[in-house]
């Protein structure tokens, strides 16, 4: 397209490539550095340089972390919340989206109004807390799952998607005697797999990153998810319990590596599913911007 390249045009490109390269590096290098330090021995790494490769490779920090079982427990809690929470999300969201996608359903408009108003106005933190308390959900995992069982925004987008499905398929299934539930499970859900995958990931990432609800609703230290533990270790600089053969002085010299290792543990699963995330999320956000 650019047949004649003037000096100005080349300078334009040069600036562009340089700037974007720097920007991309700024976003990823801190994380690579953190992985590198988490794998470095405290003798070899003196915290003076921005290393991108482990100095004096060692797994000491991870050994220590997994020897205390605080981290293991937190990770298990988070995995449980992510799996159970996402299942609840899907169950609630898909059933509601499916029934609201039926234009002939009586009362549909009023329920939609109810949903939309809840996106504009909320009772706020304290009344919601009191409701969770009244339901005796405090200090249970349900407090992390139920108050966010449906994201109104996600539900409306899925509903709009269901409405765009060709009605013929459903009708013929109905004529063959299929019930609404059978139509949802056998026809609508299989046809909507890419969209459902997108929102499954949305919900799952949300649960993995859950922090605020855990701070508010959970007191029990044994139930804290990984993000809460991460805050305690890195931001509040609290010590984990003593574990195994590590004494206090070893912990002090290890402390920077340990903090970095916890960050890695809290992020790695997200990075592992990142290829899927990127593929589906970009679709999802564009889906959200088109309204039906």
């Amino acid at each position, binding site marked *: 397209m650019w047949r004649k390249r003037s000096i100005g045009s080349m300078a334009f490109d040069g600036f562009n490539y340089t700037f974007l390269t720097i920007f991309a590096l700024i976003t990823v290098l801190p994380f690579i550095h953190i992985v590198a330090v988490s794998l470095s021995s405290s003798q070899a790494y003196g915290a*003076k340089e*921005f290393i991108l490769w482990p100095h004096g490779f060692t797994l000491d920090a991870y050994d220590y972390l997994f020897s205390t079982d605080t981290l293991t427990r937190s990770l298990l809690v988070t995995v449980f919340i992510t799996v159970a929470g996402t299942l609840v999300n899907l169950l609630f969201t898909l059933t*509601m989206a499916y029934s609201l996608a039926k234009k002939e359903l009586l009362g549909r408009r009023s329920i939609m109004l109810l949903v939309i108003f809840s996106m504009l106005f909320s009772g706020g933190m304290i*009344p919601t807390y009191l409701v969770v308390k009244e339901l005796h959900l405090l200090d249970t995992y349900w407090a992390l799952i139920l108050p966010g069982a449906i994201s109104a925004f996600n539900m409306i987008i899925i509903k709009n998607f269901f409405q765009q499905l060709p009605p013929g398929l459903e009708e013929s299934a109905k004529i063959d005697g299929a019930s609404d539930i059978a139509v949802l499970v056998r026809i609508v859900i299989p046809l909507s797999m890419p969209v459902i995958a997108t929102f499954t990931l949305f919900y799952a990432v949300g649960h993995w990153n859950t922090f605020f609800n855990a701070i508010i609703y959970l007191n029990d230290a044994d139930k804290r998810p990984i993000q809460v533990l991460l805050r305690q270790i890195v931001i509040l600089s609290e010590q984990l319990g003593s574990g195994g053969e590590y004494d206090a002085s070893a912990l002090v010299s290890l402390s*920077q590596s340990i903090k970095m290792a916890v960050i890695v543990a809290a992020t790695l699963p997200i990075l592992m599913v990142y290829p899927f995330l990127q593929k589906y999320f970009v679709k999802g956000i564009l889906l959200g*911007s088109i309204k039906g």
Partner: protein
Amino acid sequence: MIIYGNRAWWYIGSNRKRRRLLQTDMKPLVPSPDTPNAPRPRQMENKRNRMLRKVLKDRWLYILLLPGLLYFVVFKYFPMWGIVIAFQDYNPFLGFVDSPWVGWTHFERLFRDPDFFMLLRNTALIGLYKLVFFFPAPIIIALMLNEIRKQVFKRFVQTMVYIPHFMSWVVVVAITYVLFTTEGGVINEWIKAIGGEKINFLISSEWFRTMFIGQIIWKETGWGTILFLAALAGVDTEQYEAATIDGANRWQQTWHITFPAIRSTIIILLILRLGDFLDTGFEHVFLLLNPMNREVGEVFDTYVYAVGLAQGQYSYSTAVGLFKSVIGLALVLLANHAAKRAGQESLY
């Protein structure tokens, strides 16, 4: 009156119609069996039966709807009803119903509280800084990415800059902590190496807003480019060829062809950002707050948490939250109205 001109005419018109109707057909308001058009009791019975039959036919749909509906009622509308405690002296033992009513006392206390001005200033300043420094960032990056002809490079940059969006605020703040801490953080080691004095980025109140906005830019800029890139994908490439023939340089092309293509997207997003101006992001602020930077960092959300949950002043903190929610709602409705006027379909 000028802005609402149309609506005013509509009211006048409908009043006139109503008056004419009242004058001409002075029919009884209660339908009597003699009036030919009024539904007869049997017809009404039929109608009710039809509705019932429809509901019965769709019974499985209603059963499927039930969990979702229950969710919205319990976790969205019960709390809205719970707002009444903002006008009470809520006592957990007496409950919502029996706690004594105190009217606007809590709001009066809020407006007289010296902290109120601080909260308003902090919330507004954070919103303003976000608008000025963060809002343009994705637009600039998207415009730059759009000029890249090497698709491999473009995709590489995109893959990299989307990553931080998926990290939690805890991870982002934790990364900042380990890099910027005065106790062995790389950044402060650098400052020391070039002969500077260590700066306590994490505690000091002077650095709070800079760090806060910097973290938002780091985490969300890449992700923010997606909408703009989608808008840019629709630009007709022939326009660039024509502009090249006319002798326009790259910068002129960007300014006169590319930028106008995303102008409407920018305006709509800007309006919507204004709508959630007060949403500072509870988690993010909460993670950065400490007693040293409270003066610049405390916002309405964190104040509600501190006063309500940490100190147990449920009624007062609900009033604070309600104040913020009502202003937030007004802003969103205004923004939505403005977005409609800007020629776009409304969001809700």
